[in-house]
């Protein structure tokens, strides 16, 4: 399957946009309700949930391709029920791909994931994919009747079942972690018989890169908290194993990256405004300075041009890739600020990234997968 082949299948409209369809750009949200360090104010759960929805709608408005929500089951995080939120966003958008970052494949019942996201796929006319993650909050496992020490095994068994539920109409199944299934049909069946595309998200577990490679699924590296060299090694491992498992060349593997930016017209303004949020950020605050962290990780705080240059450099780290998501709403940033950031991202940054990433990209590197491309591939395979 090559980009050219797929482009031909979609007629003139697709040909017209195909140059820009190589990659998908979007935002992913953790969904933390964190006090704004500049005024001490914490948004209510309702405010934060509505803010996430506003951010998703804004993403479509400014021409981004993807909105992905986290899934968490402990305060201060609000998004415990992703498909409820994504279903609402589906009704208010037309083009946006709805995704997750991440769906907990360990503590969720894979049967419920199959049903929930099968349903969402129909509601959203196929604009759905999802990213599997293990979750690293110890108590969440026992709260859902599981054991964190079995995390990797849960991810393996649950995902193997999930795939069968989407690909076989009637499933007989027995495993270690859930009740056996006899004659079970997960409904609704995947839209057009095409299961949602799955990414596997991991920061440091080679087992997950291997799982993504084994199935020929996508691999997403969060790429926020670690030096670029670490991201490079994880992606390289995934690409090599993708080829090893016979899905194509290493360059055919489907790679997504996270990123974290804060922009103002003048870079000094960006640094000044973002510093208190950085210094108090729940995940990495009270540690290295903004300058150190910017040097050591992909975080970029500065002008739109600086963000463009830094993001383009990711290609040197992981090769031509398919999806770039940015973390924009966290650490207590106000909704107003985040929406301003999305305006800059959509108007000044992503259009340039689309053009620049297309330059020098070999024609046979696969496009970012969509429901349409997967359906076309399936029909091509059947015909």
């Amino acid at each position, binding site marked *: 399957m090559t980009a050219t082949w797929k482009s031909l299948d979609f007629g003139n409209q697709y040909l017209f946009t195909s140059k820009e369809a190589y990659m998908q750009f979007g935002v992913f949200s953790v969904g933390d309700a964190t006090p704004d360090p500049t005024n001490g104010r914490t948004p209510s759960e309702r405010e934060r949930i509505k803010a996430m929805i506003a951010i998703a709608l804004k993403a479509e408005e400014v021409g981004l391709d993807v909105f992905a929500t986290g899934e968490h089951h402990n305060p201060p995080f609000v998004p415990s029920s992703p498909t409820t939120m994504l279903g609402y966003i589906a009704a208010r958008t037309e083009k946006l791909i709805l995704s997750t970052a991440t769906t907990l494949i360990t503590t969720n019942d894979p049967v419920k994931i199959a049903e929930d996201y099968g349903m969402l796929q129909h509601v959203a006319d196929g604009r759905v994919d999802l990213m599997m993650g293990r979750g690293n909050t110890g108590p969440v496992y026992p709260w859902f009747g599981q054991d964190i020490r079995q995390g990797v095994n849960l991810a393996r068994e649950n995902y193997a079942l999930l795939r069968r539920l989407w690909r076989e109409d009637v499933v007989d199944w027995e495993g270690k972690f859930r009740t056996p299934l006899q004659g079970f049909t997960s409904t609704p069946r995947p839209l057009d018989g095409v299961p949602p595309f799955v990414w596997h998200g991991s920061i440091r577990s080679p087992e997950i*890169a291997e799982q993504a490679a084994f199935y020929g699924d996508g691999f997403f590296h969060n790429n926020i908290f670690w030096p670029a060299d670490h991201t490079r*090694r994880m992606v390289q491992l995934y690409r090599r*194993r993708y080829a090893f498992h016979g899905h194509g060349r290493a360059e055919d593997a489907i790679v997504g990256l996270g990123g974290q930016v804060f922009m103002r017209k003048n870079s000094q303004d960006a640094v000044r405004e973002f510093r208190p949020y950085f210094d108090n950020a729940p995940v990495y605050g*009270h540690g290295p300075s903004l300058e*150190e962290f910017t040097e050591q990780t992909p975080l970029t705080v500065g002008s739109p041009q600086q963000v463009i240059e830094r993001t383009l450099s990711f290609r040197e780290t992981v090769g031509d890739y398919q999806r770039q998501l940015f973390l924009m709403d966290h650490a207590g940033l106000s909704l107003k600020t985040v929406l301003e950031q999305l305006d800059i991202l959509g108007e000044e940054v992503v259009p340039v990234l689309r053009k620049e990433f297309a330059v020098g990209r070999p024609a046979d590197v696969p496009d970012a997968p969509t429901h349409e491309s997967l359906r076309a591939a399936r029909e091509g395979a059947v015909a």
Partner: protein
Amino acid sequence: MKLVAVSAGLSTPSSTRLLADRLAESVRDDLGTQGHEVEVEVIELRELALAVANNLVTGFPASQLASAIDTVTGADGLIAVTPVFTASYSGLFKSFFDLIDPAALTGKPVLVAATGGTARHSLVLEHALRPLFAYLRAAVVPTAVYAASEDWGAGGDEYTDGLPARIRRAGAELAVLMAARPPAEAEAPEDEVTALERQLSDLRFD
């Protein structure tokens, strides 16, 4: 051969560093007489204190700390020396070893040593340092060296050897383990991916 000493002393000059140097010298002399060329590197944790704290917060090591960790995990033998703080190893000493992969020191020859104001704390080596390295599955030599302030100005007595004799004995024990061990393999970045793949070898997906 690569011998690495980790010193958690905080003052300059520090008796912890002094003990680390004396131990390293003893090991080098011992291996030298057996015909082994020994390269010694001393890591002063004081210089890495901020980087260690930052790693605890961010989850990844800054480059200088990363190379210190690589130096320790790549050594043929390790000397670990801490001052005694509040009846145990210092927090900085423990935090540094907290950042090392629990499997990275498996089988590594290690000599543990400590300094303190009074000899009454000498068992800290047995109730704190030795269990720490036992957990890490390192091969800790039988003699652990404790230097109280008074040891720097005293010889042995009828019950105990003096500090120089204890240093020589511990150094000889470490030298024996190092000489018996195949040299550590240098790990290039490319090999780390191979290492990751090795971790996967027992995982099968169905």
